[in-house]
């Protein structure tokens, strides 16, 4: 079964601390992984996708097929990073399968 697991509902860190938002997936085919972010009062927007291997707003994520993970990392958190983060899995059918999301709260 296709599934995305985000084990943390809430992650609270201090400004300047490293951040790692966990995402594990289950998929039998060749996965395509995404991180979407929703800032307060804004729409869901793409943060990054594994295929592009870009670093957006200082965030990176590496697809680890052996561990079936796609954790999102940032070395130094900023207050403006506070938001809801969703890991999503895409595949041959093009529909996205989302995790339950992790609320990142960056304290000053």
């Amino acid at each position, binding site marked *: 079964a296709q599934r995305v697991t985000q084990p943390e509902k809430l992650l609270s860190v201090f400004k300047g601390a490293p951040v790692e938002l966990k995402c594990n997936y289950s998929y039998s085919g060749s996965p395509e992984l995404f991180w979407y972010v929703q800032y307060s009062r804004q729409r869901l*927007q793409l943060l990054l*996708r594994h295929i592009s291997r870009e670093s957006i707003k200082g965030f990176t994520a590496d697809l680890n097929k052996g561990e079936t993970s796609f954790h999102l990392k940032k070395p130094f958190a900023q207050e403006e990073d506070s938001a809801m983060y969703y890991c999503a899995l*895409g595949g041959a059918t093009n*529909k996205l399968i*989302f995790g339950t*999301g992790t609320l990142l709260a960056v304290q000053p």
Partner: protein
Amino acid sequence: EAGVTQFPSHSVIEKGQTVTLRCDPISGHDNLYWYRRVMGKEIKFLLHFVKESKQDESGMPNNRFLAERTGGTYSTLKVQPAELEDSGVYFCASSQFFQETQYFGPGTRLLVL
């Protein structure tokens, strides 16, 4: 460039009534998707249009939900009759090509009382 728009932003209806949600995708985007997030659950796929054709409707919960995309432009999602468990946020997304980035609308918050 205007993004994906959805109307209304909020809707409060009584159980048994009918509600129609509208989505206008980004101009030129052939692919249109509907998703929803019910209380406490993850965002779930409902269906996917390519132009006016339903490519995948595997996520539609039951026959109370009807989606259309006449002319391959905007789409509507009708819930008739609405039930309490239909409450949630309904998102629309669009993409230009298959397996390209999906751009999301702001969502419609539906509350069924």
